[in-house]
């Protein structure tokens, strides 16, 4: 419902940005990186990550960021939207830098969505925020390379058959 409402022209830019902020906050609360808080990670949560509805998140980010760009272009006070941009960057970081205990799910099942979300975020982020994006993309690329080789090795050794290592290796590249 949220995704389809976003596609209509009835919602104002401000409303779209507020809803996107709220959806991203919710996403970060559930799937955000919490390597320092390993106790809160359980099997149930790991399963949920692989079933996350990235199609909805992609659609919300797409319309929300377009709305945010429009507001950003029309306002003098650029700092107003900084928290929104920062939250978007945090969400993309979570996608590109998954926690160690759930390292392969995103690459195996959601790499297309990750690609789309990165693309949409980069096409809308204002130039002043690019310095924050650089380390994120660099670390994301390095981790993807690491995962691709690691998954090849595991696929060859036929480790844990429940995890689709070949699929994760392909998604990582």
């Amino acid at each position, binding site marked *: 419902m949220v995704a389809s409402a976003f596609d209509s022209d009835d919602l104002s830019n401000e409303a779209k940005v507020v809803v996107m902020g709220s959806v991203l906050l919710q996403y970060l609360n559930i799937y955000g990186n919490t390597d320092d808080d390993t106790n809160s990670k359980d099997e149930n949560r790991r399963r949920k990550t692989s079933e996350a509805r990235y199609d909805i998140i992609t659609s919300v980010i*797409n319309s929300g960021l377009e709305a945010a760009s429009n507001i950003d272009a029309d306002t003098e006070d650029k700092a107003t939207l900084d928290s929104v941009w920062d939250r978007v960057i945090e969400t993309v970081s979570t996608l*590109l830098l998954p926690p160690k205990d759930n390292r392969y799910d*995103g*690459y195996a099942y959601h*790499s*297309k969505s*990750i*690609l*789309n979300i*990165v*693309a*949409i975020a*980069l*096409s809308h982020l204002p*130039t002043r925020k*690019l310095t924050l*994006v*650089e*380390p994120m*993309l*660099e670390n*994301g*690329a*390095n981790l*993807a*390379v690491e995962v*691709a*080789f690691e998954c*090849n*090795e595991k*696929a*060859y050794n036929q480790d844990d058959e429940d995890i689709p290592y070949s699929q994760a*290796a*392909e*998604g*990582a*590249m």
Partner: protein
Amino acid sequence: MTRIYLIHKPPRVPCKFGFIVQSSVTNQYSYLIYHPNSHVFLACFMGLCQKMPTCPAVNSLTNQILGETIDSDEDDLSEKMRLQSKTRHSLAIAVCESLSTATSQDLLVGLFPLLCRLTNVENDGLRRAAGKILGGMNLSEAISRERQRADQADLRAKEIEEENIAMLEEIEYLQKENEELQRQVSGYSAT
């Protein structure tokens, strides 16, 4: 394979497998359609190439991936090594595809030796990808720009040298004048 399109206007809505970025140099939008099995590394590296082509990460990742690919280009590999080699080639092709969308000629000129070495590897796809970047490079412009920069540096060096000579002459003149004045002062004090 990844296909890349450069268009002048973005589509109204980003398509499902699309990637739209605007070049800060040409203001053109690059619109990329991806192969469904090639994603996260390509998304990150292409983002770096198009948004921050001069950042150190682009150079270090390129040198790392292309360098390792060139060094490990061997014929006789075990099955396991062949699998790793295939991954390395896929990553190297992703690097080349990304570099071919970068608008920074400085970045490409800096990678020229590495790209030349890449045209000599066994893998056809990789050779073609490297050739495509080399073919798109405007080397004569880069050379003439560097020559212009060198000429300007030479000119500036000459100007500074002339200034230096003039200052040395000035110092010599002032020293002589100083000696003369000191002589006059000592002459007065003697009388």
